[in-house]
């Protein structure tokens, strides 16, 4: 093999090999977060068509925040990014902050398109589709019972 010489760039011995306690702790944290997400998902399912817009969107936001927390644990502990030096962490995390603006701008745009369609370019008040959206949910419930 050409590569049985150790890389001259490896200037440190990885010393985060102390124990597996941290790994298993992270596993339980990730599992717990997933279970909470699923519980909220089922809450949304059972309240489908009963809740107004505000509690639904709040629950979805909480699920999204829990997802970000899971991402933090995976990247920081499983991928050991938390153990790297600060400069390297910053070169990865700072560019990813662009996503904050991407998400806000693009979802805003999608929503603007929906409003334009529903109002035919603001030439009439929103109608029809908006009503249709709630009808099936209510009818679905009756169907099940």
């Amino acid at each position, binding site marked *: 093999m050409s590569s049985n010489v150790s890389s001259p760039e490896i200037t440190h011995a990885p010393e985060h090999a102390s124990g597996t306690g941290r790994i298993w702790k992270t*596993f339980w944290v990730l599992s717990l977060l997933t279970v909470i997400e699923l519980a909220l998902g089922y809450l949304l399912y059972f309240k489908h068509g009963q809740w107004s817009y505000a509690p639904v969107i709040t629950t979805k936001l909480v699920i999204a925040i829990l997802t970000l927390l899971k991402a933090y644990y995976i990247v920081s502990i499983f991928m050991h990014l938390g153990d*790297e030096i600060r400069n390297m962490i910053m070169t990865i995390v700072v560019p*990813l902050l662009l996503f904050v603006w*991407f998400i806000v701008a693009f979802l805003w745009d999608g*929503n603007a*398109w929906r409003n334009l369609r529903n109002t035919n370019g603001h030439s009439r008040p929103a109608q029809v589709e908006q009503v249709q959206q709630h009808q099936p949910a209510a009818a679905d419930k009756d169907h099940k019972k």
Partner: protein
Amino acid sequence: MSTTAIPTNTKWWNGGRSPFNASYGKVMMWYFLMSDAFTFGAFLISYGTIRFSVNHWADPNQVFNAFPFAGHANLPLAFVSLMTFILIFSSVTMVLAVHEGHKMNRKGVEKYMVLTILGGLAFLGCQAWEWTHMITGDHAVLVNGQIEHWGTTVTKNPWGAHVMHEGQLVSTPGPIAFGGYFFGITGFHGFHVFSGVIINVVMLIKTRLGHFDQRGHYEMIEKAGLYWHFVDLVWVFVFLCFYLV
């Protein structure tokens, strides 16, 4: 953690050592994963934009409610939770393989790499079942006043808004983008899982051949591990965007 071992006045940029205290390969793996994160992010944000721009979108609890061998039982979120836990667990076995690599324990690395590969294959099997179930599904859809039976494909979406038809509540065709985004994004993720399994198999073979013992370190396992954890990381977001909300 490791930063505590480094003197505070170390001159990182004077040359002679890695300014990031990591090997070239590992740093480049991180930057590759960052660019891959932008690719996945672009797909998911595009999906979100289209979803926000229409009045009715497929309800995930209705679309993904099947479980193998459970017939027509209505089990929303169940199968995808299984897939999520498979991937979390294979992430744990991967990080344990990296841990054994730090201890230069070849047998331990082999054991955990095998478990990780099995986890990856289990996930791919689940995804194959889910895709088959969706494509070959049979759902009544009202098209031009006629009832047709559709599966979910990139050109057909039977999960539109419901209307009354001859005294019965039936679905209408939904936005065509649904199938394209679902199969496109989960397919791209599944392709990452597939290539991750291939990489892990190569690593297992190299471990068994003793290449890393000769080299004096198991850093390749760490790099493969970074890729594998990234696949789990992406799934966390796919799970959020397609199945939970």
